[in-house]
């Protein structure tokens, strides 16, 4: 049945020949070959094994006193670790979700409330916000202030005011023991 109809259609349209079929198959084969050659070249630009091997960072929290902050490097970018005071924890937990542009509860952003660990690049265009050092401007909400385009983050690293669309991201964090974390 199928063979018959194929035969009939070949007769009705005399442009379709075995040569057209070969032409298509040969071109397709060439395209597959070019793709097979292109893929390793493209893939070689993805992160290499030595880069992936640096994709986790361990941090000893012991020297960080309450109220102090530490910036560590994870995947080439800063991560903010803040040993929050009781006041900061209360403030972060007390905010109603309706007030937040990017609604997220503080409890969803920390493993232990006294340790806030967030990515240190503004979600607007990637600058590093101020607020880690004692003398830094911390913005209107006591967290961080990005000097590039004026984004204000609160004590949970959530965006409160300014052009940034999202909260400072929370990286994957695991407590190896009470005072050691693994980021990534």
């Amino acid at each position, binding site marked *: 049945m199928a063979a018959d109809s194929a035969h009939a259609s070949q007769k009705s349209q005399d442009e379709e020949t075995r040569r057209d079929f070969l032409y298509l198959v040969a071109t397709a084969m*060439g395209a597959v070959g070019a793709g097979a050659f292109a893929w*390793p070249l493209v893939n070689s630009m993805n992160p*290499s094994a030595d*880069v992936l091997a640096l994709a986790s960072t361990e941090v000893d929290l012991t020297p960080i006193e309450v109220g102090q902050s530490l910036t560590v490097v994870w995947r080439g970018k800063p991560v903010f670790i803040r040993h929050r005071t009781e006041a900061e924890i209360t403030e972060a937990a007390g905010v109603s979700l309706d007030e937040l542009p990017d609604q997220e509860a503080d409890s969803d952003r920390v493993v232990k409330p006294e340790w806030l660990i967030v990515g240190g690049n503004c979600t607007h265009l990637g600058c590093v916000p101020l607020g880690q050092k004692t003398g830094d401007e911390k913005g209107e909400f006591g967290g961080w202030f990005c000097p590039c385009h004026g984004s204000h983050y609160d004590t949970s690293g959530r965006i409160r005011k300014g052009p940034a669309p999202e909260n400072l991201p929370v990286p994957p964090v695991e407590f190896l023991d009470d005072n050691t974390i693994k980021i990534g």
Partner: protein
Amino acid sequence: MSEHLKTNNAVIKWIDHRLPVFSMMNETMIDYPAPKNLNYWWNFGSLAGLALVVMIVTGIVLAMQYTAHVDYAFNSVERIMRDVNGGWLVRYIHMNMASFFFIAVFIHMFRGLYYGSYKAPREILWMLGVVILLLMMATAFMGYVLPWGQMSFWGATVITNLFSAFPLIGESIVTWLWGGFSVDNPTLNRFFALHYLLPFVIVGVVAVHLWALHRFGSNNPLGIEAKGPQDKIPFHPYYTVKDAFGVGVFLLAFSGFLFFAPNFMGHPDNYIPANPLVTPAHIVPEWYFLPFYAILRSIPDKLMGVLAMFASIGILFILPWLDRSPVRSAKFRPVYKWFFWLFFANCLLLGWVGQEAAEGLPLLLGRLATAYYFIHFLVILPLLGVMERPKPLPVSISEPVLKGGGALAGAAAKPMEKA
């Protein structure tokens, strides 16, 4: 010209009217009339072109991972081999395709020698080819220095020291080439810059090479000009298919080396980091330089050896005027044909001598083969042009195929008469 472009696509027509790229592609790759009797030896031009493209594409990707500094170069290459995704594949393609590029180009050149493709009116076409060969040799040499292994370092030292042979200015030239008093970081940096640049210069010369080629079209196995359209066929589909088939065979042989013996044509010493204090016991260049290296070593004088080596390529520039025979193809030159094969065997012998230690029998054979190399060009070719009695040439490309076949000849009778 553009009236030959057959398309109903309005966008293509609009663009082509303003920038006739489609017409040009049509004229050079589709409708381009080529002699209808080209054999498989004519595949190697397009294969060399393919090799050039593969080298540039893989080279750009490798350059993204490579560090041109004496302290990091070797390790950055090892990182490519071990850590970069598919880096081993990209580097082995680049390494082995370099050899296959030379294989294709050497066969392409011997084909030109056998069929007299360098003769009028294709002298400039041939000379541009020799320029491409020189650029390739410079590029390959500098590329071999980049991994900064023992062979890289000592190859660079030996080859740059060639220039010290020139009296008075030699030492200054070498210091200038090195950017210091030995092959060191400045040398590596400039070699990397030039290794990246020269392939694009090659692309430019290839474009001019093709321009010159398309002026009179390809030579052919009979070595006689096409007498008219009946002697030619359109490039597409006849030669696109033939070239594509050649590419398949070429890549099959290439894959054999790539996947089963990727270091066959390399030297283990280059996997030892460069050490300016120790020279490897046996240093040899890559195989494609061996015949020229043999010529260099067979002359006992430093300056003369260097000059002889450069002359062995330089002499190709004046080949069209050394071979005075009006007949192109060796098919109709009963004596030249034998001398061609003798010359070919002599080149292989030089290659063998080049990788042996320069003493005893290899040294003697190298001296004889070097002498014969130049005798071939300077004595045999000019004499043959006068003394050889060529066989009668066919009237046209079609004639040897069609003569005697009554029915076929009848069909082609009209164009034959025109010819």
